[in-house]
């Protein structure tokens, strides 16, 4: 029994004047369809993040605890893997008053981080009544860098433990 006609053979048999066929991707290579909802693509696609930062200085004076010291960041295609660890390390920053994260809806690949920093009284006569100890953006950046450093330390420790285990096995 002859094998069924399969894509590869069908392609070979296609008339050469069939322009659309020759233009079409090879049978073994369907067009690259990138599913924007594919959770994996975040690893290769560009990381996107956007800030929601209140900037109205007037509001700030009237309502301590809001605005210039507070920002929310929205991360696309991130989840608890990054969110929780980042939240933890940002909270370690003494300038940070509050840091929390949430995933607003499980079927949307969005993760939000809220950062609020401590503020100090402004110097009289300078016009500024309050100034931030550090802006939320700085705190976020520091948190990211700290977490990278923590990863480095753990890698190092793991390699050390491996060597130790190796020598123990030989002994």
């Amino acid at each position, binding site marked *: *029994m002859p*094998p*069924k006609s*399969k894509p590869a053979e069908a392609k070979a048999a296609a008339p050469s004047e069939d322009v659309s066929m020759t233009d079409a991707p*090879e*049978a*073994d*290579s369907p067009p*690259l369809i*990138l599913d*924007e909802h*594919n*959770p*994996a*693509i975040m*690893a*290769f*696609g*560009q*990381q*996107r*993040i*956007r*800030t*929601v930062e209140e*900037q109205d200085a007037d*509001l700030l004076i*009237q309502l301590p605890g*809001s605005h210039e010291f507070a*920002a*929310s960041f*929205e991360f696309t295609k*991130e*989840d*608890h*893997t990054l969110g*929780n660890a*980042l*939240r*933890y390390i940002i909270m*370690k920053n003494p300038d940070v008053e509050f840091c929390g994260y949430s995933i*607003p809806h499980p079927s*949307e690949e969005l993760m939000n981080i*809220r950062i609020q920093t401590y503020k100090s009284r402004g110097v009289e006569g300078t016009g500024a009544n309050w100034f931030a100890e550090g802006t939320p953006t700085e*705190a976020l950046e*520091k948190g*990211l*860098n700290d977490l*990278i450093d*923590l*990863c480095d*330390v*753990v*890698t190092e*420790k*793991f*390699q*050390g*433990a*491996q060597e130790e285990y190796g020598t123990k096995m030989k002994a």
Partner: protein
Amino acid sequence: MDYDPMIMDTEASGPSVKITEAGAHNVDFELQHVDLSFANSLRRVILAEVPTMAIDLVEFSANTSVLADEFIAHRLGMVPLNSKNVDDVAYSRDCENCTDRCEACSVTLNLHARCTGDDIMRVYARDLVVDGARANQWVGTPVITDPEGLGTVICKLRKGQELNVKCIAKKGIAKEHAKWAPTSAVGFEYDPHNRLRHTDLWYEEDPAKEWPPSKYANQEEPPQEGEPFDYDAVPERFYFEVESVGNLDPDAIIQQGIKVLQQKLASVIQTVTEGEGGDSNGMNGGGDYADGPRSPDTGMNGSGWQNPGYETPYGGGNASAWGGGAGAATPYGATPYGQNHTNGWS
């Protein structure tokens, strides 16, 4: 902002790792003095985001076996492939050398079997033959661990039946499909005596009698009789058991996992700093982010977030709830902080 998070965590000792058991395909270790959130990140990343190779496309030239094409294609996808140094392989979707796929981003495996004898013929994973060049000498070879060196059964053929397929293996992560999983199990345990009460043990009369002690129960002091509950206690020691499928060495899985986590962080840092340079408002702090710094997704055929056919409340279409707004709404739109500055507290 000068402080050392490692020191703050752990009174001078910092994180530490102790390997308790290691084999060719598994490693058990104890991670100490890190936060639960970090340990959990490590677990999640090992489980779902370490890249490996797996067959992703199968082209059938002949299949007269009793199994359907898609059935066999699925089975082929599940066969673990050696993924040593997968970093040499590019992701097919963002390979720079080709528009579709090439040697730098895929491995081709051929399988051609025809039964000519009267006995039932078994097609094994070892019959998959790597064809053409590949990124390095390991990547894409089927993992075979049984003593006979046959590998997994892919199909069975009777006299006259034939199977002739070309498989294209690509790099991917388990978040997309479980066939790319580097591990078959990641054990993760802490607080074997449940001193922190993170879990409620079901019981009839006495949980202590009815539940078997954890494997790690002797690693930590059991709570004293009548000891008061310590509300400030946090988990400190995490027991991992990483078991490889065979495509990567277990220690490579862990190191790759940490690396993936760092790459995620690095790419966020990049966006944060880039946004700062280009925008005096800080990162992009205004309300105009709908056409602001959200760069189009690379290689997404122009669809991505601009796709008008897909809109979520957050989703970033220009017609979305906040895309057009002039104010600085937050995702926490209903909170006092999230008001537009046009109507907030002024």
